[in-house]
């Protein structure tokens, strides 16, 4: 019984850590946007890196995705889907951006 409640506490702590981390990152993102304005690409780079960090925090602490041996197949699935996703998004942005430059809808 004690061991169970000990494990329960530990797992709950994991969730609370994940929640606290995500909360902190959210406040950081909106704080930066509020403090420095959102017009410059440098600020946007910081915001997107914080967003990426938050994705990882939530994947680890909420969805329990890690490199443990037993969940490797599912990790493969996730990594493969991410690759497909990146090809779709980056490919689209590349092609359409290139097209826009050639059509002179955006300046070189």
């Amino acid at each position, binding site marked *: 019984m004690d061991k169970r409640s000990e494990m329960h506490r530990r797992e709950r702590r994991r969730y609370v850590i994940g929640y606290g981390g995500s*909360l902190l990152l959210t406040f950081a993102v909106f704080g930066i*946007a509020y403090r420095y304005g959102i017009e410059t690409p440098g600020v946007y780079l910081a915001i997107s890196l914080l967003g990426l960090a938050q994705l990882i925090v939530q994947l680890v602490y909420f969805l329990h995705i890690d490199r443990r041996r037993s969940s490797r197949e599912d990790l493969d699935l996730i990594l493969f889907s991410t690759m497909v996703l990146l090809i779709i*998004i980056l490919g689209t942005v590349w092609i359409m951006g290139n097209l826009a430059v050639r059509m002179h809808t955006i300046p070189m």
Partner: protein
Amino acid sequence: MKRAPTHSYPGLNLGRRHASADKASEVVTFGFWVFLMSDLVYFGLMFAIYITMIDAQAGGPGPAELFDLKSIFAQTLILLTSSLTVGLAMLALKYNLPRWRIVFWFCVTLVLGLCFLFLEIRDFMSMAEKGGIPQRSGFLSAFYGLVPLHGLHVTAGCIWLIVLGIQLRVFGLTDLLMSRVVRLALFWHFLDLIWIGIITIVYFGGLTYG
């Protein structure tokens, strides 16, 4: 040395206490992950369209006039908290806490989900008042293709919460229902991940590059 508990699938496992439900969940949960990942690719397409459409405002209202960051901030906090509460429901199930604890966390999650939807719909209405309707420009079409799609997923999640909450009250903790709770928790966490993409790319990206 202590051994880490074995996991048969990603996400929170039901644990050894619910071994039969855990075993039954394994294949179904993997299938559910396949669904989530194909859903992710669908969202990815909508994100790609949005990014390419960001300049196609056709003289209509742009991100700076339309987006209300305070409301987005509130929605983010609400959705994040609901992700925590659905996780707590899952823990209550795993550690055999009284059934009302699970239903309680379900109710909290449902209320937070509905608050999120309320704020989101209010935002859409105020956008429409400023002339930001889907047919105004390519940018707005892409916006309304993506953000309400997420809202639709949250709506589906809310309906799922209600149905599953009633089933839990009526039938108790059967193996089938326990494995459904696992999948609902995965779905809800997944929606939170998509939302992070939306605030980063749609809202902040729109304000920076739009």
